[in-house]
């Protein structure tokens, strides 16, 4: 017990305060090349042509790489491998990667990428979950625009609402959110004499990265090494592949060390987002202040690719009741494809959107009951022995009531007296 219960200085902090912590962009290697990708500028369509031959002639350009030059898998993804590493023909969002250019320095790379010209056939995309669910909507997923559909049911929802003295029924929307971790994506790859590839990257999933790079290069995982550098923030935004495969591919083809560095703009365009959600909530409460029924429908805009969409919407469904005991629950949550930026992991992972709805419902119902909102929450909050909507019995460590007691002390609210005002 050298550290438990004590203030300790985190081991990585020292290098960070003296400016010696190494993030990927701080790595420089003799003879290193710079690579970058041309990305789609329209959300949905097909590539007709790219002026790759012209780009090869730009001074300083070392290699121009398209999907045909990828030795292995041409797409990646944490669960479903649906995100193109380089687009074959159809693309589904702004920011999909079309062409990987490798140059001798940053300046030549910029000129080359600025000169890439793409001819598109543009398709009519869908940009709201409502449009994506229409019968004539283009199908973006595997036979459907519904990536994931989960139901959580407990008790008898009809009976529950019959018992209700008050009902609150409302629609809530949450917005797309960007991580804006402060260190833009960067990866540096090198090749050993025996052909093994090393990728230095700030990542949340070195093991997933190794698998994806190995698949992309059609190499054994043992021959790929992912070296995690210091990570300049992540918040879920570094769970999917971003520069890893491109850097490794450029090194594989040129046999040289390569750096891929994103600008802030490219960082924002490329990586996942927090799911924007539309939430329908109908909550019933009995005359005595006890919650009796909850019906929820959640529509998560999962964007163009799957990423963690299933897992995020599952978490929303599981957390839909909030930390409250409700005997009758009917929840359904769907992750729906659109041509928006793809949604994935971000701090809270689907549990961050639902509180807007369940807590607003609690305030509305407290007002209808003429109860103090904290008393109303306290009356319904989980405790040891509570059974959640997914029928999990909470056997230990349920601290919510204790938190509320502390809050009540601060504001001098009597929680255990007759709670009606």
């Amino acid at each position: 017990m050298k550290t438990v219960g004590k203030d300790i200085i985190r081991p990585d902090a020292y290098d960070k305060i003296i400016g010696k912590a190494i993030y990927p962009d701080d790595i420089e290697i003799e003879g290193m090349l710079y690579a970058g990708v041309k990305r789609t500028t329209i959300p949905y369509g097909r590539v007709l042509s790219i002026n790759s031959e012209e780009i090869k002639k730009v001074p300083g350009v070392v290699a121009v790489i398209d999907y045909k030059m990828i030795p292995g898998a041409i797409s990646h993804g944490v669960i479903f491998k649906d995100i193109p590493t380089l687009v074959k023909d159809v693309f589904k969002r702004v920011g999909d990667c079309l062409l990987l250019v490798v140059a001798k320095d940053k300046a030549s790379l910029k000129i080359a990428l600025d000169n890439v010209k793409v001819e598109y056939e543009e398709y009519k995309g869908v940009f709201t979950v409502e449009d994506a669910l229409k019968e004539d909507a283009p199908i973006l997923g595997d036979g459907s625009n519904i990536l994931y559909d989960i139901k959580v049911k407990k008790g008898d929802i009809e009976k529950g609402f019959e018992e209700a003295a008050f009902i609150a029924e409302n629609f809530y929307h949450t917005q797309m959110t960007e991580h804006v971790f402060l260190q833009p994506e960067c990866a540096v790859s090198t090749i050993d004499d025996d052909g093994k590839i090393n990728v230095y990257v700030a990542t949340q999933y070195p093991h997933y990265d190794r698998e994806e790079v190995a698949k992309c290069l059609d190499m054994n995982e043992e021959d790929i090494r992912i070296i995690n550098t210091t990570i300049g923030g992540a918040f879920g935004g570094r769970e999917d592949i971003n520069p890893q495969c491109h850097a490794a591919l450029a090194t594989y083809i040129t046999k040289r060390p390569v750096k891929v560095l994103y600008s802030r703009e490219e960082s924002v365009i490329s990586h996942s987002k927090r799911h924007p959600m539309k939430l329908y909530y109908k909550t019933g409460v009995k005359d005595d202040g006890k919650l009796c029924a909850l019906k929820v429908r959640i529509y998560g805009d999962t964007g163009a690719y799957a990423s963690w969409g299933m897992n995020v919407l599952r978490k929303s469904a599981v957390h839909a009741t909030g930390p409250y005991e409700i005997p009758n629950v009917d929840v359904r949550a769907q992750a729906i494809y659109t041509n928006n930026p793809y949604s994935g992991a971000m701090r809270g992972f689907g549990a961050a959107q639902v509180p807007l709805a369940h807590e607003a419902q609690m305030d509305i119902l407290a007002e209808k009951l003429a109860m103090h909102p904290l008393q109303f929450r306290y009356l319904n909050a989980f405790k040891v022995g509570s059974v959640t909507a997914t029928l999990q019995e909470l056997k230990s460590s349920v601290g919510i009531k204790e938190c509320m007691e502390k809050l009540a002390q601060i504001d001098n609210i009597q929680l255990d007296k007759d709670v009606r005002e």
Partner: protein
Amino acid sequence: MIKVTMTVNGKLYTREIPPMMRLLDFIRDELKLKGTKEGCGEGECGACTVIIDGDIYNSCMVLATSCEGKRITTIEGISGAELHPIQEAFLEVNAVQCGYCTPGMILSAKALLDKNINATEKEMKEAISGNLCRCTGYQKIIEAVKLAQKKLKKR
């Protein structure tokens, strides 16, 4: 190419550089001082903060050639064998998370406390208002600046 001479962390440097080179690139690429970070490249985030003749600047918004004859301080230049009290304070109150904003935060705090050792909390907040921390560690950072102030006053 243009010849430029400036003092960085007490050392005089002369280099022939392209006229449009940013001070940030001069520091990182020419001098190989990697503690100054690029977060946005457009003067919003403050990760590239350096001190020029006592005032803080976003080095991504400054042309290196405009620093002729000036004295620049980067994160590598504020401590010798021992840590600067501001660095100590950042360690002690755990004001460091991902670390990417940290060099800029420390330099903004230093520029403030060098000018006004009696700075108020409000002045501290203003001093770091150009430095973004996305790990949301502002409270600890302000605590660190306050602790550093105490340490510096004792000296």
